[in-house]
């Protein structure tokens, strides 16, 4: 048996290419005579358009086309509602180009296509639009209040969706509780800000009548389906490729953005390739964002701290449209009980329209908010009952032998009841306590005090439903000439390292080196069954599909090699690219096996000679290819999870606050996490630390800000503060591996693991640090220095003086 690479820190197959500048993103695709698109976007959060005059733009030299809602044909319609749900009471999606109304600053109003981007931008400035601005209610609570200005005139109260779910009997639990803890928490809006913005390039080929679209998307197959449907073209005449994608983090899973349909439309109409590359400002005003929720959470507990029931009501800001349905709010509401048994749960939310950039999932998708709510509530419960924060958690953890733990009545984002598959929560908590040095906490606090600082312990536990369905596929083929393994799946990469982990999975089955596995993904021309990369699902769903396909390919290789070597299948082992009789040097290469199983007419190389009709090995007792057999070694298989696997972890931090300057310094950070069996711990760590950096942004730095008129105030990297290297504290990662019982590889997703618990952890640390100063509770994320200043009573002092 070959050395298994599963579980090894195998270096990435793609890196030599990316490190030498050979990565190919959309703007790097060079097509002859390509034209460039630029967009005119709404400068108002809410307004009526009274007139649009494009004559000057149309007359501008170099302009090939100017488009408004009046000349885009039948695509002038509401874009699809991707995830319909019965609780959507007023679902609204946007049109490619505004017709009559604009609903947020940044909404596309007109498109110019010109010979280059500069000309297109110049012409955009020549378009004259008259607007009648309308009054707006921008803040979530204001938009939800009685008498709020409406985003959509026909959606009362700005309520897009209203949903209640129950598991057990919360009312009874509250009735018999000794104690009820109630807090309100608020998490602010952030944005994914991938380093490559969105981008689309399209070409209509008149000869093959094929629409070719390169799209920096997380969902090429879904985009293909949508384009075929929208343009009424057969699916096989639309090919969508997501080449190297420069980050997505959820922002690129939504389709359709207006640009994604308008650019292909222009390519067809103008019979010329068209490209659009989002600039950074556009990414802040034209690409979806996420996070704002206000939760009021109540815990009903015994005096010993056992939580009997939970009630959570929250408002979810969905921005001006709700194309992705209630996914975020649903994930938040079904993750709200965290790792705790809490048998009685009532969750209710309202998704509210605000005149801002539409909201769809961003890495974490509702979980950071849920984690912040439950974890801050557990801390408050501990405080009110006079219990230790660790102890109150321990008393409520689902024990290892209690899995599967089902929350009947709570339907997760996949439409199935929440059911946690496996975990060792108590162990994770203990490991976090140990790694952060809990036993030395008092000493460390005293040391900080001696330096005029205050140190606190941050703690946050998260659970994450990952790897949800419906399914993905894996296609495995052995190349007859090189013997390399060719693997396809339908979803695409956004930089996670799929090509390497998928290669490891196939390599293990077929006894080759992962570098000899060629993974092609994100190309509907290569494989077109499947969904997309999101919700920490690629490794779980595609990974297991590839594993299943590769296992079957392995059986085929063994059977064929046994025939070729005249040995028993049980004696064949696969290693180093060969099938060998165990304990001997008699072997055939995978290339030879793939060739031999493909009866040939022509001998195009030496190995092929043995597969031609006059070769000694050729059998002549029937047709060269037996009935029911396919040539070569090629298998396609699928994996469809019975329900989501639940990863989890515990974060802890030492957080130091300077009370004079109200600055925060994270002295140490610990991530204990469990994503089941790890395919590649190096890539897992990359996901965890990278996610942690985004969580850090959400805890201390990043907030998308709008003024009261709905104008974005920090739509750029100068003002939207993402962490640089210096912001990253010392991070220790502790891996746990509790296999998932749900899939052959025993894995769970890890894409969002690092992000979820960071705000809860760091902000609880700030609160703990400032307890001696009576600063009170920190129930908002992120926390900025001026908020600490106000909690310390500074604002009052300043007023008084």
């Amino acid at each position, binding site marked *: 048996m070959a050395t298994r690479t599963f579980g090894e*820190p195998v*270096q*990435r197959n*793609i*890196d030599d290419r*990316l*490190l*030498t*500048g*050979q*990565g190919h*993103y959309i*703007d790097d695709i*060079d097509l002859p005579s390509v034209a460039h698109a630029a967009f005119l976007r709404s400068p108002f959060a809410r307004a009526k358009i009274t007139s649009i005059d494009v004559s000057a733009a149309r007359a501008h030299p170099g302009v090939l086309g100017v488009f408004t809602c009046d000349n885009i044909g039948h695509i002038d319609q509401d874009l699809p509602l991707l995830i319909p749900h019965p609780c959507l009471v007023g679902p609204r999606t946007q049109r490619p180009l505004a017709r009559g109304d604009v609903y947020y600053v940044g909404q596309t109003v007109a498109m110019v296509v010109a010979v280059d981007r500069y000309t297109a*931008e110049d012409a955009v*400035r020549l378009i004259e639009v008259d607007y009648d601005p309308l009054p707006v209610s921008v803040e979530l609570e204001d938009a939800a209040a009685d008498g709020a200005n409406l985003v959509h005139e026909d959606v009362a109260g700005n309520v897009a969706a209203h949903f209640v779910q129950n598991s057990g009997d919360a009312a009874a639990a509250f009735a018999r509780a000794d104690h009820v803890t109630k807090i309100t928490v608020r998490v602010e809006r952030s944005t994914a*800000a*991938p*380093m*490559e913005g969105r981008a689309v390039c399209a070409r209509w080929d008149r000869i093959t009548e094929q629409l070719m679209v390169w799209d920096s998307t997380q969902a090429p197959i879904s985009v293909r389906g949508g384009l075929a449907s929208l343009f009424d073209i057969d699916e096989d005449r639309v090919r969508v490729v997501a080449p190297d994608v*420069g*980050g997505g983090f959820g922002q690129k899973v939504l389709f359709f953005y207006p640009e994604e349909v308008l650019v292909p439309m222009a390519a067809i109409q103008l019979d010329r390739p068209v490209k659009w590359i989002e*600039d*950074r*400002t556009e990414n802040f005003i034209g690409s979806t964002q996420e996070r704002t929720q206000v939760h009021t959470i109540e815990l009903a507990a015994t005096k010993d701290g056992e939580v009997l029931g939970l009630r959570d009501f929250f408002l979810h800001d969905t921005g001006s449209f709700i194309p992705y349905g209630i996914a975020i709010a649903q994930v938040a509401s079904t993750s709200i009980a965290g790792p705790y048994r809490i048998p009685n749960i009532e969750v209710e939310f309202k998704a509210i329209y605000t005149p801002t950039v539409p909201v769809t999932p961003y890495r974490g998708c509702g979980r950071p908010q849920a984690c912040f709510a439950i974890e801050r509530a557990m801390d408050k419960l501990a405080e009110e009952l006079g219990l230790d924060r660790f102890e109150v958690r321990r008393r409520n953890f689902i024990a290892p032998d209690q899995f599967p733990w089902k929350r009947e009545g709570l339907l997760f984002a996949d439409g199935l009841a929440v059911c946690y598959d496996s975990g060792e929560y108590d162990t994770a908590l203990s490991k976090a306590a140990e790694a952060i040095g809990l036993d030395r906490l008092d000493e460390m606090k005293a040391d900080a005090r001696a330096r*005029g*600082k205050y140190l606190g312990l941050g703690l946050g536990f998260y659970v994450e439903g990952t790897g949800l369905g419906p399914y993905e596929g894996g296609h495995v083929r052995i190349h007859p000439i090189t013997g390399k393994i060719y693997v396809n799946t339908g979803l695409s990469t956004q*930089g*996670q390292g799929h090509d390497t982990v998928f290669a490891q999975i196939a390599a293990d089955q077929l006894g080759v080196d992962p570098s000899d596995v060629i993974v092609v993904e994100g190309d509907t021309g290569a494989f077109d069954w499947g969904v997309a990369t999101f919700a920490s699902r690629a490794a779980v769903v595609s990974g297991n599909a590839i594993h299943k396909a590769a296992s079957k390919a392995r059986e085929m290789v063994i059977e064929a090699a046994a025939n070729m070597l005249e040995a028993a299948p049980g004696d064949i082992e696969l290693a180093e690219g060969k099938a060998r009789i165990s304990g001997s040097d008699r072997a055939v290469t995978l290339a030879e096996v793939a060739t031999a199983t493909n009866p040939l007419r022509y001998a195009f190389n030496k190995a092929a000679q043995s597969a031609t009709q006059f070769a000694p090995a050729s059998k002549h007792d029937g047709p060269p290819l037996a009935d029911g057999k396919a040539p070569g070694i090629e298998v396609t298989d699928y994996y469809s999870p019975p329900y989501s696997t639940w990863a989890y972890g515990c974060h802890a931090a030492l957080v130091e606050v*300077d009370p004079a*300057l*109200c600055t925060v*310094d994270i*002295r140490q950070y610990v991530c204990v996490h469990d994503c089941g069996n790890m395919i590649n711990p190096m890539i897992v*760590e*990359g996901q965890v*630390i*990278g996610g942690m*950096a*985004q969580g850090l942004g959400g805890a201390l730095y990043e907030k998308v800000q709008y003024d009261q008129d709905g104008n974005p105030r*920090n739509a*750029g*990297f*100068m*003002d939207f*503060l*993402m962490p*640089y*290297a*210096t*912001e*990253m*504290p010392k991070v220790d990662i502790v891996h746990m591996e509790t296999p998932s019982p749900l899939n052959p590889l025993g894995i769970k997703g890890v894409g969002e693991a*690092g992000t979820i618990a960071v705000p809860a952890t760091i902000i609880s640390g700030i609160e703990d640090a400032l307890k001696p100063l009576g600063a009170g509770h920190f129930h908002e994320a992120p926390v*900025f*220095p*001026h908020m600490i200043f106000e909690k310390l009573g*500074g604002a009052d*002092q300043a*007023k008084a003086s």
Partner: protein
Amino acid sequence: MQAERHAIHIVRRGKVVEISDFAPTETLLDYLRLRERAIGTKEGCAEGDCGACTVALGRPGEGEGTEYRPVNACIHLLGMADGAEVITVEDMARDGELHPIQQSMVEHHASQCGFCTPGFVMALFALYHREAPDGLDRTQVNDAIAGNLCRCTGYKPIVAAALDACADPVFDGFGTDETIMALKEADKGKTLFVGDENRFFAAPVSIDELAALYVLHPDATLVAGATDVGLWITKQMRPIDRVIHLGRIREMTAIEDNPDSLVIGAAATYADAWDALSKLDPDIAEVLRRLGSPQVRAVGTVGGNIANGSPIGDTPPLLIALGAETMLRHGGDIRVLALEDFYLDYGKQDRQPGEFVESFRVEKPGPNTAFRAYKISKRFDQDISAVLAAFALDIHQGIIRSAKIAFGGMAGIPKRARYAEKALKDISLNDPSGWQPAIDALARDFAPMDDHRASAAYRSQVAGGLLKKALTEIAGEDTMATRLTGTREAADVGLT
């Protein structure tokens, strides 16, 4: 004027390339991506914040070798690259072998989606070729990549890769004698004028030529590092037809380090002025370290930071507290102004048409002067200060004889705190109970604003806190212990 050259010369892959047909606003990034099709260099923000477009520019160093500095190609005007070797990510691997930086990044899993990666490679290439190659800790690596955003990796693997690769002696085939020869061939040392009277990129080589040219074209845009002007082009889409680049004027890039004073040419870059300014006081070094990024400091100038009158520049308060003067020149006339008098109001400076800032003169703090400066912002690197404070106290036998205090972020311009200065006069450093009137006086000096960076009340609190902190430190407390990330850095050196 007598222009002697009508084309720029850059060194690409060992060869001198002549470029004569370019618009004054063409960026180096557009040249690379659109003309050369060297598409490895990426545009991530077009405003010099993310560093995805970082390339290395090589010029002859002070010694014998080549000095490599990272620049943001997205806001670097092509004409400014005149005379430099331009190295992009595609040039790094040689004979199929990855550059040590690239190899180390592979080994440490320092790339995920790969979009920011070329920029990190080039920023680290500059670190690899740093001037003082001894010892390297995490803080220095963090500083070297303080102009590079990554949204995937959380930076840790990149830092680890840098520490590994930069631990070895430089051995990568760059900066050889051939490089120097090519650079000498490329650098013609003559005045450049590309275009016509209506639209040009000019780079005079003497201050007299500049003065004459600017009098002729008082509406031309003077460009030193283009870290601001670049954004006028890429973000505000301002039409700029006439550009005069100052970077080739020796007299304006020079730094005169006298025993009692520093004279800094207005076109001296932060990178060039780094040593001289840092030597004035460790706190100045600490502020400079956080001013922009290596890419910004490589081309951004002290003069530009001051002359465009930005209310958020970090340098003016430092220099005002040190009593700096600015020299303004119009044709042959020179005017000297105290730096604080240069700032009239928000966005308004005391500068006449055709007049330009030639240099600054800074008195070096004497033995009786105690200096402290602090930058307070949410993020450590590349963040606009909520408050920038600078204090210079003249102390005799524990008594404050006089004080110069300047703040940024507290008003529409960098401004002295004259009431607080007065309140400190003749106060004992050793009796903290006497400090409060000065702290309270700040409320008379400033009425700061609420904005999305900070609230007015918080700014006031911080201003008072910083004055107290300065006095506490000058009275004897350890600076490192109170520095913002000082304790973490001290504990964390070498760790990844």
